[in-house]
């Protein structure tokens, strides 16, 4: 049922899920990501609002509150597991990198 596009999260998708550990609404998410990554990762409004409903469909986030036309989202348990999965993949990549290059100066 999960989309094939979400099998491996792109950085944009990853950070969107990550900052939703705490409840936020759309615009806040964009700012949080920019702050967290020192503006290295910028998620555009179009991308964000494309991801939010699809994350909800796949169960990674849920709408926790709807106030005043502002919808507030937060990560679900399934979302946390997905993040963990992706993080484990990335940690393995880091580990393998260090094994291969063995502290060589690049």
């Amino acid at each position: 049922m999960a989309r094939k596009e979400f099998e491996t999260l792109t950085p944009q998708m990853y950070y969107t899920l990550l900052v939703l550990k705490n409840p936020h609404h759309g615009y806040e998410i964009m700012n949080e990501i920019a702050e967290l990554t020192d503006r290295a990762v910028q998620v555009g409004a179009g991308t964000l609002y494309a991801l939010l409903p699809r994350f909800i469909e796949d169960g990674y986030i849920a709408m926790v509150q709807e106030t005043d036309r502002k919808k507030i989202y937060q990560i679900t348990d399934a979302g946390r597991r997905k993040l963990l999965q992706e993080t484990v993949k990335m940690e393995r990549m880091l580990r393998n990198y260090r094994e291969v290059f063995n502290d060589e100066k690049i």
Partner: protein
Amino acid sequence: MMKKYKPIGLYIDDIKCRKMLEDMAEQGWILESCGDSFFVFRKGTPQTLHYYIDYNRSDPEYDALLKEMGYRFVDARRTVRIYCSAEELPELQTDPVTRMMALNELIPASEIWFSLLLAAVIVFAALMTSGSLAVDLFSFFFHSTRIMYRILMLVLAGTLVLYALLVYLQRRSIRRQAEGIRSGMDFNIAAFYFINILSSVLLILVLCLYWLTYHDSLFVILYPLLILGSTWIARTIMNRYISTMSRKDKRTVLSIILVMGLLFFRFAINAHLDTGREQVRKTDIVTYHDPQTSLYSEETNPILQRISIFGADSHAEEIAAECSNGFVADTVFRKLIRYAAYMKNPVGRDYPCSNFTAMEEYGHLAEGPLPSYTDALELFVKEETSGAEIYTIHDVPMFNDIIYDPVTGIPEADTYVNDICIIRKQNTVIMIRGFADTVQIIREFHTK
């Protein structure tokens, strides 16, 4: 106000589309709207405008956010929404994977199947009209719109197939974007032009055919235009509002359209458009100038003529059609030949036909098909005189005309059967049914 038009095919390629829009703005052409087929630009001052493309549905919170951030909404086609701004703003689409995910949902595959299915429905409905045309010739003699109905329906189905092809090519182009292959601008535009021009050419051909056949009936031109216009309107509405509908709503609407299409095309063939009256005209009752015959018609049945010969009564029926051109005359003639042949060998009936009016019933209830034109023609004897071709078929069993001997109650010989004579004089077709000698008299009158 001056306007410029560019084909809409580009809208699925954001890089090329945005570049095109920005270039146009530099030259002073500002995007005003995008319709079903074209981007529409209005003339303004040359300026630097930045365009952004989004694929998300309209939503109060989202729209307000974009507006606040400075993106000005221009227009949308389906779920592709175009925004512009004088200053440079952050990109809306920052993740190519997410963008492809949204773009893939733009044109569902179901549109291909739906178009093909609708085309099949239309072809089926068109082919189903073969029986009713025969009925038309007798009971609805003046509604010759149906002669061309089948051709129009087949062309309409053809344009739907072409539309399905266009959708398929667009989906393919989107798929290739995901693989990093961007179709040449030329390909998208070429496909768009090719398919739309081909469809338009087909439709124009049909309209010309209609004009040539029914050249003095404006309404008959409006009838196909009505069908074609409504499909164009349906497509425009679909492209404008489909982005605001949820998937379930879309399915509901499409199912409704399919069912309505079925019903419409099934019953449109029975629509009594009062057209074509001038095309097939029944002749006035004439007096035969022969001292030995007097002729009068019974008003209750305008096609029945009662002829008095040598003081004895004899029945005859005559239908005459003055057609406006050879094509209509040919069609009427061929049907009459086939019907007369059927009356001689009525397959699937256990009693013969009584008269032309009863053949209306035949049209509905004939269990066997009409013989083909070539098979039917073989039953006729052909003669030619100056300016007329005469086809006669003998010994057609006709139930009502049996005359019983008042004393013995035995049917008199030679009253079982009739002659049917079909005369083709240029664009006039006449069919006469009666006893052999009566038919002979009337025939001579028509062909002297």
